[in-house]
């Protein structure tokens, strides 16, 4: 690990101030991604701003229209939340399958979504549910948030404060874990909300993406059969020792079907 200045602010204002004007400063939430990166010397931040002291960032709120999850809410808390289970069971289920217990007890939704790992699970839920990301300076719709490989709409020094998910009439998430890391090799989130049907795919490509053809088919008939013959092109999908682009493309259809079955249960 390289040397860096460590800050532990108590308020959002202090956090924003600590990051201001320092392009090489990094916020830290659960540290589950950041700390391994530091230990392997793959990152050399000038400052690490630890958000764990900011009480207001954690917590889950439900109202008539949806669920708002604070950025510092741990995966384990999402997984076990009665509110989340009641409003969007698929989201709680997804959180319960991230990593292992240690990771779920430290890792946060804000950290995961900000990191936008192509194999992370949460981005599928955020995009699949058409969630809204609230930051220190604005709100960003899911469609505008995920920009590419590890790339988001966040500006330097901008922090996620919470994410709001609309209530789902039906939702399901099916993950095909990478055999080694157990991150998503292909994860498909399907949801039917007031805003319509969405199908979001993580793990398969460089960034989470939607499958329009499946969404249209499911809007007509929300059943696994409706999408069984819809294939995504392998072109541009990830390819590695665990799965070729073709295999991943195939798995998208299989996992999408299973996610629909799950949603219909």
């Amino acid at each position: 690990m390289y040397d860096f200045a460590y800050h532990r602010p108590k308020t959002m204002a202090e956090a924003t101030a600590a990051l201001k004007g320092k392009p090489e400063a990094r916020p830290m939430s659960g540290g589950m991604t950041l700390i391994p990166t530091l230990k392997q010397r793959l990152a050399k931040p000038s400052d690490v701003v630890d958000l764990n002291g900011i009480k207001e960032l954690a917590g889950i709120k439900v109202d008539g229209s949806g669920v708002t999850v604070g950025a510092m809410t741990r995966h384990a808390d999402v997984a076990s939340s009665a509110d989340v289970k009641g409003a969007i069971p698929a989201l709680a289920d997804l959180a319960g399958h991230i990593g292992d217990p240690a990771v779920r007890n430290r890792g946060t939704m804000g950290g995961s979504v900000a990191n936008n790992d192509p194999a992370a699970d949460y981005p599928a839920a955020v995009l699949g549910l058409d969630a809204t990301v609230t930051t220190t300076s604005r709100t960003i719709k899911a469609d505008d948030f995920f920009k590419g490989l590890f790339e988001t709409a966040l500006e330097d020094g901008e922090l996620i404060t919470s994410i709001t998910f609309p209530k789902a009439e039906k939702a399901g998430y099916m993950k095909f874990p990478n055999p080694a890391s157990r991150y998503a090799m292909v994860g498909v989130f399907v949801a039917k909300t007031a805003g319509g049907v969405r199908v979001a795919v993580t793990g398969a490509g460089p960034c989470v993406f939607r499958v329009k053809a499946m969404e249209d088919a499911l809007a007509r008939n929300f059943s696994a059969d409706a999408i069984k013959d819809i294939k995504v092109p392998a072109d541009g999908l990830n390819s590695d020792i665990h799965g070729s682009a073709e295999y991943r493309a195939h798995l998208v259809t299989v996992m999408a079907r299973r996610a629909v079955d799950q949603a219909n249960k």
Partner: protein
Amino acid sequence: MTAETGIGARVKRKEDQRFLTGTGRYVDDLPLARATYAYFLRSPHAHAKIKSIDTGAAKAMPGVVEIFTGKDTADAKVGGLICGWVVKGKDGQPHKAPPHPVMALDTVRYVGDTVAMVVANSADEARDAAEAIKVDYEVKPANVDLAKAFDKGTPEVHAEAPGNLIYDWEIGVKADVDAAFAKAAHVTKLDLVNNRLIPNAMEPRAAAAEYDKGTGNYTLWSTSQNPHVLRLILSAFVLGIPEHKLRVIAPDVGGGFGSKIFCYNEETMVTWAASRVGRPIKWTAERAESFMTDAHGRDHVTHAELALDKDGKFLGLKVDTIANMGAYLSTFSTAVPTYLYATLLAGQYTTPVIHANVRAALTHTAPVDAYRGAGRPEATFVIESIVSKAAAELKMDPAELRRKNFIPADAFPYQTPVALQYDSGNYPPIIDEAMKMADYKGFESRRAEAKSRGKLRGIGFSSYIEACGLGPSRVIGQLGGGVGQWESAQIKFNPTGNVQILTGAHSHGQSHETTFAQLVSDKLGVPIENVEVVHGDTATTPFGMGSYGSRSLAVGGSAIMKAADKVIAKGKKIAAHLMEADVADVVFEQGTFKVAGTDKNVPLGAAVFAAYVPHNYPLEELEPGMDENAFYDPSNFVYPAGTQICEVEVDPETGVVEVVNHTAVDDFGNIINPMIVEGQVHGGIVQGVGQALMENAVYDKETGQLVSGSYMDYTMPRADDVPSFKLGNKVTPCPHNPLGVKGCGEAGAIAAPAAVMNAVHDALAPLGVTHVPMPATPQTVWQAIHGGK
């Protein structure tokens, strides 16, 4: 001794108290005053010429104590690392032995090859400085694809081994095998790759060394499976520090699986440099270094053919194997694909003639050496795959075909056509028991039920044999082995009657502290809590060979029994004196010396006390003290055998294979602690399932980069990947060691890959799939089903 702690009892592991409460002491835990820390700069290239190394800026970095490169060690005449087993090829010549310098001189030969050693006040400073070392490399094409290692135009790893050939070796008479094939009614052919594995011991390799200027003595703490052998190699071949001036301690060691048998450059360098810098040096591998530089396992490309007569009797077996050695020959690398592999190719069968040709290849990859099973898993995978394939081709029941060819119980000792003489065994009852436990009869209905859920269910057999507990030393010497294969033991009583067992074996997961204590407790009647097992320190234990090849109990335990016999013999004399009886009339029963037919008795503790306080003692005839030493050289290998039956379910849509049932019935001879044996079998099966379905060391074929260099890409089996196992055992005691024991440490890993892969093939057979490469990962299976990309 009491039934609760004696031979055959499920005594809880003594060592678990500290392991489970975080109070074990590993090399990295060692507090050393004024310690410095080493960091090794590794080659990022598989093959490159080192044009220059500039350590100037790095040496000026904060905290840096010293930086060494290959030039420094060469100038100081540090010897190269050795390969301790000479294999003679078909041409009668010893294998090619290219130099293995402790740090690269002018060429790097694999990703991870050592380029420089930085010693600094802290591990972080050492690493910071390593980043400031400037190495100018001229990158060269790499030889990574094993199947092409001997091809014309493939880059050579060492000039000393033209064409990358280390040896071209054979066993068996080719003409006899050809004649047998000429008479065959059926020939089954098989091409397979035995996938390369990375050991992944829970504790990474570590070394710490200290030089005492006052005495000139060195102490090396190392994560070694065999501290005396390590010391011998360092003393006699590499560093020239006399054995009596070098103490090697292997304290608690968190797993090895073979990878910690070998003498590595890091522990060598740490020892050498400790005297140069005048301060202790510590080093602990990072996980990424373990992936890159621990000796890897397996890695064969094989073609095999089995000839059968019209009734399914095996007539002959032909095997042609290319074995990967990596870029340098590790300590026992040459023996693994020859004497530990091809000599096992008879399996449990009466195959009358066998010929195997093994060519060892150099590649620009990490060295390959013994890994749990070492050669025997590879042999079992060949035999058990081809036998099951033959059964499928002949539409015979795989169990029936095996049974038809088993060596019959009355044929032991049985001389195989590939040198080994099996001492004992009885195979048919093992497979019967396994089939009963696995409910083989009910399989077809389970298959049908699985089908109704969209799953393809398959069942697979693997009837393995292994040879372990190596010896006798004479034979090992004739085969080119450079060391003896005996084991030592010392039983040291204290005046108050408690005991230390000093063993030359080493425990790094094998539970010797419990099993060996049970032996002595049982034999001498000493309560188990009064028995302490001491191992892993060349200064306190007698010279020993360490632990590998499932030898600890069969060889090390036998030495302990010999020492215990000496204790009893001496105790009898003392007791005879105390009881004023004739020695010939004294018997030893349950910890007490007695004169048969009288009520005279002397407890062992009283005899021991008399030996240390010899006031009433036959000092004219007998030395005082109770401290007995024994060395045991086995008269043959031991031959554990068994059958595993695996049942899998394949999801044809995704290619995911789930192990749903796994049964293992073994013959390990007599069993000292069934719980520990089951633990060894569990771990072994999981490793075997790992090899069959998950683990794969992948190097990029162009660049030689280790693609599976972390847990993000190297799939380790996890607890939820396996079902609860059904274990059984059948006993034919080993006829030639005092305990009647065989070995159990490797069996699970030896048998499981073939059982799992045969089950996968059986599951996919209805789809017309005839070959699935190992590991059968989801993608591999899906591709096999869909013939696709």
